[in-house]
């Protein structure tokens, strides 16, 4: 099909402009037998409300309890044989 046979499609409007102040939606993946993987624009704070040290956008939060880098996952769930399903 050549270009002029196609009716001109409207240019899609981006759902949000960068700098609009609208944050990217957050997604949380519950990784089977592993951590919670969190993507998007979110803030990670401690019990005192202060932001926790963080060096990457996407993080994995420990949900097995065995990590020595809590709240982040350090892969220890594999050593302890953590199962997320009963």
């Amino acid at each position: 099909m050549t270009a002029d046979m196609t009716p001109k499609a409207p240019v899609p409007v981006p759902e949000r402009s960068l700098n609009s102040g609208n944050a990217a939606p957050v997604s949380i993946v519950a990784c089977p037998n592993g951590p919670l993987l969190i993507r998007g624009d979110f803030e990670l704070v401690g019990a005192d409300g202060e932001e926790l040290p963080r060096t990457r956008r996407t993080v994995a939060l420990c949900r097995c309890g065995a990590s020595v880098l809590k709240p982040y996952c350090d892969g220890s769930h594999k050593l302890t044989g953590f199962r997320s399903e009963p």
Partner: protein
Amino acid sequence: MKQPSPRGEISTLVLNTITGTVDAGQDSLARLATLVEEAVAAVPDILYDDDLQLALFCLYELHYSGIDEAGDDWEWNPDLLRVRQQIEKAFERRVRDEVILGDLPGTTSEAVCAELFRMTGADSGPSMSRFVAKSATDDQLHEFAVHKSIFQLKEADPHTFAIPRLSGRAKAALVEIQADEYGNGLPARMHSALFARTMRELGMDDTYGAYLDAAPAITLATNNVMSLFGLNRRLRGAAVGHLAAYEMTSSQPNRLYSRGFKRHGYGEGATEYFDEHVEADAVHEQIAGRDMAGGLVESDPGLLQDVLFGAAAGLAIDTRMTIHIMEAWESGRSSLRPSAAMAS
């Protein structure tokens, strides 16, 4: 990269050829083709052949940082590529011999991810990380850094070649991982820069390729297998599988490596590389298994075998390197090439 010292007839001729002009190289190319043909037929095990592994490493290097005094026009010279393919073919055949895939999992992303975690969780021989944590001497830590430096000073580069060959979810996942590897825009946070810092803290030269002469053939083979997968589009599934397995076998060993360096009194400057990988790779392994490898197989189920092959091949060749190093250390020898003095 600085020119390495040749290790035999073939690597000598490769280096001589690429440091001359293309016009002057025609005769040596013809001779090279003959020599390689004979060598790949006669070699007992190409994985341990210094001359062929170094020749292949140098031919691949033309696609990365280049080699001092080698003209840039050699990169796509068809006659030189033909020589590379002769070595590559024998190498790939050997790597395939190394891998036996069991029952294939389903082609959903979760099934692929689970299979990769199973493969990487299976015990695969001696543990270098436990040894480094508990018993390695300071000299052995320096040797360890030599082996690692061949790749870590260009960490992430071979798999980056796969980016334009993927699409959708798998591509986004690979880019997400690589962005982290490359420091998310901060040059000092690039993993290769963190490793360079470790080397400086150890009093070593952090120039890319500075210790190439000391690295045995099997260490070069672990690098060449990544370039084989990264530079051949037909092997994009293997590149993805290789990276996934690499990320999945990284967090815990890096924690132990860090412990070994701390034990010898090295500070944060030396251990940050390893500490960073504990956290980073706990994230990367999830993205790599599920979104990158799993995403690729979901969109292209025909690549399932290639993905698993890449993962298994990386694990197998890395295990061989570990065995080489541990055997040397256990018998009180250096794991580096004897002829190459370790300048530090």
